[in-house]
């Protein structure tokens, strides 16, 4: 559920779509983001790092 950290950046609905796609296709959140071609100002590995979420 690390995608929660992206909600302030891209919104709840897009994050839901990412989470569902990752689950359905057995992929990581990062893989789905890469496939969708989404770009973030901050490094995606940092955005999805659990240690930075606490």
């Amino acid at each position, binding site marked *: 559920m690390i995608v*929660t950290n992206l909600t302030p950046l891209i919104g709840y*609905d897009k994050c839901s779509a990412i989470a569902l796609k990752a689950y359905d296709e057995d992929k990581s959140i990062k893989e789905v983001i890469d496939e969708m071609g989404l770009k973030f100002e901050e490094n995606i590995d940092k955005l999805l790092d659990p240690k930075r979420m606490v």
Partner: protein
Amino acid sequence: MSVEKILDYRIEKDLLGEIQVPNDVFWGINTQRAIKNFKISGKTFPEIFIISLAQVKKACLLANLDLKLINNDIGEAILKVINEILEENKYLNQFPIDIFQTGSGTQTNMNMNEVLANRANQILGHPMGQKKPVHPNDHVNKGQSSNDVIPSTMHISALHMISEKLMPSLDRLKESLSKKIEEFKDIIKVGRTHLQDAVPIPLSLEFEVYKKQIEINKERLKKVCEELYYIPIGGTAVGTGLSAHEKFSELAVNHLLKITNMPFKVNPIKAEGISSHNTIVNASSGIRLLALSLLKMANDIRWMGSGPRAGLSELILPQNEPGSSIMPGKVNPTQSEALIQACLQTIGNDSVVSFAEAYGSILDLNVCKPIMIVNLLNST
């Protein structure tokens, strides 16, 4: 005439698909799904819970506006709707979801988010159900999770009921008991132990006991309130505050203080107020102790009033109504009986609250929140 007008419903979408939502309601797809998925008791949250939830939403919105995390036009529109709820009691009929729902209260939090977003969109001249420009999650629920919003609402609603309803009734009861103590001060009666004659006792002393118990219970409830002022707002999903601004909780709690005029504080370990509801159990058990005191009083009074010819006949109880459909002239201690039943209900409610803590507080989220607060509020 548009298709929607003819059909009387609008189509709303989420990740799970499309469903129909009636055109004339302010709630949205989450609420509509919940109406269908939780057709259980037909009981909905009491109004005070919905009003308290609106107070939490107002505090969170003002915090987000302070932090400039929400665009002013959107923020003003949401604020207008919240004030319509808080000042004009509008939209209180827009919360149809059963109390037996998710243990986190998410459906009811989303119900509020949807009502606020839809009405705000309407104010801004946009159709309902589109989540644009005001989004129920991204704007109304910003920096929040049901997991910190619902516990905060539980505390606020409990405090409203204890301080605005329960405490004033206890004060009135104390006044009535004081009058009886004065009235009965020269009457000496038989004291009884084990239901057998003992030594003489002033009738006023029996009533001093009831009054003292009310005073003890009031003091205990004041301490309960002190605990309830600590809320986990800003903790979001598991108390770590993920996706909320670091200054969000302090700002929100300060706004809440002004909105409610109650001295709320941020729980220093927000996860504690999310994963377990010790303080709600404490409040409930405080009210259970009050119920036990009232039960003794009601029982004593009906015993002393037994008779009139073949009972103790020490008290003449008010004749409020004929007591029997077959025995003419019979009058019963119905006020005592009503009070005893209310006390027993309260003791039952407290058992539910304890079990809800016991079964619900697993790992990082207590998942029996709705029945905990509904039973606690029912006891106030």
